[in-house]
C-alpha cells in the first residue's frame, strides 16, 4: 500500500480509530495485524519472510541474552547475521553477483551460461533486515536486554509507518515506546502529525513526482540533450530523490505520531550542508548512523591513523552504495562519496561537532552551493541505468553543448526548488521540523492550502512508487 494512495487515506484513519479504542495489549496486537496487512497489500507471499526474519532474531537474541558463555553468544550472533544477510543476499544480490561473474568470465574469453533464478525483490527488505540486525547486535553488546514479548518485537520489525523505507530505527528507541503505556495524543501532537503527513505528501506528489518526467527525459538519452538541459535534469533528480525520500519519512513520522510513537528524524535539510561530511550527517541519518555504529566503528573508525580512516570511509561508503541496489553504478556512487569524504578529511576541514546550526546566506551560500553540486555529480551514477549512460551524462555536462531546456522544465523546477529551499531554511534556522505550527494563522493557512492544492492537482496521474521502495 502506498502512502500516496486513497487506500492509505482510508486505511490510516480506520487504524487510528480502532487502535485508540482498544486497551494497551490489544493496541500492540492490532498495530501488528495492521502492519502485516499494510505489507501484504503489496504481495502477501513475502509476509512469511518478514515473519521468519522476526522469529529468528527474537529467539536468537533471547538465547544470547540468557547465556554468559562468550563463545556461545558469538555463535548465536553469527547465526543471526548469516541468516539475515543470507536472506538479503539471496533476494537482493544473487543475480547481481552471478551476472558480474559471467561478465568477468566473458571478458577473459570464457563462455558461461548459468541458468538464472528469477527473484522478486521483497519491498523494504534492506530496511527491516538492517533494523532487526541492529537489535541482535545491540543485545549481543549488552546495550539493551532481549525482548521477552514476541508481539512487541514483531511490531518493532514490521511497524507499518517505517517498514518499507525507514527510518531504520534502533530497538533502544522504538521498542520501549511500543511497550510503554501510550496515552491518546494531545491535540497539538495530532495537529503536528497531520501537518507532517501533509508536508510529506506535498514533497512526494507535488515535488518529487513532478520532477520525475524531467529526470526521465534527461536520463533517457543524455547524448541528445544540451548541457543546460542535463544540468536541469540532474538538479531535478536531486529534488526528486529528496522530495521522494524525505517526503516518505515525513509521512512515516507524522503517521507514527498519531499512534503516540515518535520516529527519528531521517533528514536535517541536507542540501543546506556546507561540506560533504555535514551532508552525510543530514542525509538518510538512520542509515549513515547505522553504518557508522555497526561498520565504521568496528572497522576501527578513525582510531588507527589517517590512512586506515580513509580506507574505512571508502569501505563504508562502497557498502552503503551497494546497500541501495545491486548494481555497479551504486558502488560507484558510494565510492565517489567515499573519496569526497576522505578528501574533506585530508584537507583538515573535518569537524567532529556535526552540522553547525543556523544557515547564513553571507557565510554559507557558496559552500552549500558547491557541496550541492558535488552531491549532484554523484547523483548521476545513482540515477543512470548504466556506467555508459552516466558517462554520457557527465560528458554532456562538461563538453558544452548549446541549447536550452524545454520551458516547461524550468517552469516546474524553479518553483519546486524555491519551495524546498524555503521550507528547509525555516526548519534549519528554527531547528524544528514542526516550525510551521509556530507561524501566524495566515501564513500557516497559506501553506496548508498550498499543500492541499498541490497534492490534489498533481495526484491522479500515473502512480510513481517511492524510489526507496526498490531498496
Amino acid at each position, binding site marked *: 500500500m502506498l502512502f500516496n494512495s*486513497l487506500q492509505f487515506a482510508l486505511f490510516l484513519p480506520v487504524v487510528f480509530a480502532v487502535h485508540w479504542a482498544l486497551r494497551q495489549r490489544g493496541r500492540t496486537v492490532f498495530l501488528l495485524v495492521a502492519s502485516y496487512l499494510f505489507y501484504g497489500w503489496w504481495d502477501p507471499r513475502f509476509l512469511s519472510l518478514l515473519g521468519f526474519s522476526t522469529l529468528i532474531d527474537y529467539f536468537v537474541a533471547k538465547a544470547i541474552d540468557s547465556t554468559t558463555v562468550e563463545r556461545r553468544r558469538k555463535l548465536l550472533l553469527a547465526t543471526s547475521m548469516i541468516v539475515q544477510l543470507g536472506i538479503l543476499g539471496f533476494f537482493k544480490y544473487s543475480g547481481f553477483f552471478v551476472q558480474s561473474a559471467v561478465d568477468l568470465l566473458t571478458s577473459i574469453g570464457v563462455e558461461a551460461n548459468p541458468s538464472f533464478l528469477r527473484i522478486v525483490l521483497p519491498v523494504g527488505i534492506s530496511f527491516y533486515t538492517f533494523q532487526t540486525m541492529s537489535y541482535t547486535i545491540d543485545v549481543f553488546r549488552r546495550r539493551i536486554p532481549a525482548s521477552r514479548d514476541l508481539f512487541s518485537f514483531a511490531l518493532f520489525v514490521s511497524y507499518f509507518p517505517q517498514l518499507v523505507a525507514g527510518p531504520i530505527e534502533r530497538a533502544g528507541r522504538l521498542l520501549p515506546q511500543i511497550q510503554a503505556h501510550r496515552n491518546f495524543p*494531545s491535540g497539538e501532537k495530532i495537529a503536528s502529525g497531520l501537518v507532517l503527513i501533509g508536508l510529506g505528501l506535498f514533497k512526494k506528489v507535488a515535488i518529487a513526482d513532478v520532477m520525475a518526467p524531467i529526470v526521465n527525459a534527461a536520463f533517457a538519452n543524455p547524448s541528445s540533450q544540451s548541457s543546460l538541459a542535463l544540468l536541469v535534469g540532474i538538479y531535478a533528480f536531486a529534488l526528486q530523490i529528496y522530495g521522494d525520500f524525505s517526503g516518505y519519512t515525513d509521512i512515516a513520522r507524522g503517521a507514527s505520531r498519531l499512534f503516540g510513537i515518535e520516529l527519528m528524524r531521517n533528514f536535517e535539510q541536507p542540501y543546506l550542508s556546507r561540506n560533504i561530511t555535514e551532508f552525510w550527517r543530514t542525509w538518510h541519518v538512520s542509515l549513515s548512523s547505522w553504518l557508522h555504529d555497526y561498520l565504521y566503528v568496528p572497522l576501527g573508525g578513525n582510531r588507527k591513523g589517517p590512512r586506515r580512516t580513509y580506507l574505512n570511509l571508502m569501505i563504508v561508503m562502497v557498502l552503503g552504495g551497494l546497500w541501495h541496489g545491486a548494481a555497479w553504478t551504486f558502488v560507484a556512487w558510494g565510492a565517489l562519496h567515499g573519496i569526497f569524504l576522505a578528501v574533506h578529511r585530508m584537507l583538515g576541514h573535518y569537524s567532529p561537532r556535526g552540522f553547525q546550526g543556523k544557515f547564513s546566506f553571507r557565510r554559507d551560500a557558496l559552500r552549500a552551493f558547491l557541496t550541492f553540486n558535488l552531491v549532484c555529480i554523484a547523483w548521476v551514477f545513482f540515477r543512470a541505468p548504466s556506467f555508459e549512460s552516466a558517462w554520457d551524462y557527465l560528458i554532456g555536462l562538461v563538453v558544452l553543448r548549446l541549447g536550452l531546456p524545454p520551458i516547461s522544465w524550468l517552469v516546474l523546477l524553479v518553483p519546486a526548488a524555491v519551495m524546498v529551499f524555503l521550507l528547509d531554511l525555516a526548519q534549519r534556522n528554527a531547528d524544528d521540523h514542526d516550525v510551521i505550527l509556530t507561524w501566524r494563522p495566515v501564513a500557516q493557512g497559506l501553506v*496548508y492550502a498550498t499543500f492541499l492544492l498541490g497534492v490534489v492537482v498533481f495526484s491522479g*496521474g500515473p502512480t510513481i512508487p517511492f524510489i526507496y521502495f526498490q531498496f
Partner: protein
Amino acid sequence: MTGSGDTMTRVGRAALFAVLLVAVFELTLRVAEPRLPPVEPWSTSEVAAKVEQMEELRAARDDIDVAFVGSSVVEESLDPVAFNSLGEETAYNAGLGAASMRSVERWTLDVVLPLTGARTLVVGVTARDLNDGGISQVEFLDRLSSSPGMLRARTPQNPAEWVENWLLEHLAIFRLRPLLRDPTRLLAIASGGEDVQETTDPEPGLFGSDRTYNGEPYDNSTQWRQAWTARQINDFSMGGIEIESLRRLLRDSTVAGVGAIVVNMPITDDFGDYLPDPARDLAEFDRLLEEVAREFDAIYLDARDLFSIEDFRDPAHLKPDAAAELTAMLHELIQQTTG
C-alpha cells in the same frame, strides 16, 4: 515558546483559512471552466479514437458481434475488415499498442464491452502480455487507468475508487487536474495564445491497424531488439498479476454472457530468443494460457507456430495477408462454435 492552547488556536484558524482559500480556488475554477480548453479524457490519441469509433457505432446502432482485444499484436495481426467480408457477423479491433493483460482487462470490461455490446470476445495473447516485469506495460496501464475517461468509465472496485469518482464528478479541482498540472498549456492559455497540447501517437484507421504496411522487410534490428528486451521483457516473469487479470477478464465476461476465445498469437523464433530461457518460458506460457482458457470454458486456439517468418513484419506482428488468413481461421472457428 507558546502554550499548547495557543498552538491549537492558531492551527484551527489556519485550517479554516486554508479551507477558505481552497473554496475560493474551486469557485474560481468553476467560473472559468467553460472558457478553458477541454481536458483530454483519454491517455493517448489511439485510445481516444477507438472510443470515438465505438461510440459512433453504438449511436448508429451498428451491432458488433465480435471484439478483438489485446496488445499491438492483436491490433496488427487480426483484421476486422477481412472478418466482416466473410459473412454477416461483424468485428471490431479494440487492440491497444503497448497494453498488457492488466490494461486489457479494465479496457475490455469498462469500455469495449459496454460500448460494442459484443457477444464474443477474442483475446489475443503473447508471453509479453503476461509478463509481470515489463516496463512499457506498467507505464501504459498507469496512463490508461489514470485518464479521466477511464476513471469515469470504471465500476469502482473499492471505497477509494468510489471516493475518487465522486470527487471527479463534483469538484472542478479534480476534473481540471490534467490541465492544471501542465504548465505549458497554462502559460499558453494565460497569454491568450493557442492551446498547445501535444498528441503522442497517430490516429488509427477505422477498424484496423494504425500502421500501414508498405512492403518493408522483416525488422529484427538492433534497435527493435533493444527496445523490446529493455522495456517489454525487462525482468521477465509470468504467473502473477498479469495472468490474474486474464482470469478476471474471462470470468467477468463469462458472467456477462460473453463467449471468449483465447488465441495464442503467432510469433517468430526471434521473439522466443528475447525471453530469458526461451524453451522453458514458452512452454510455461503455453501451459498457463491453455490452463486458464480451460478453467473458464473458453475456446483455445494455438496459432503460435502457424506462420513462417515471411509472414511477419517483425518478431511479433503479422503482415496484412497473414493477418487476414489468421482472421479467416478465427471466423471459421466462431462459425463452428456458435453455429
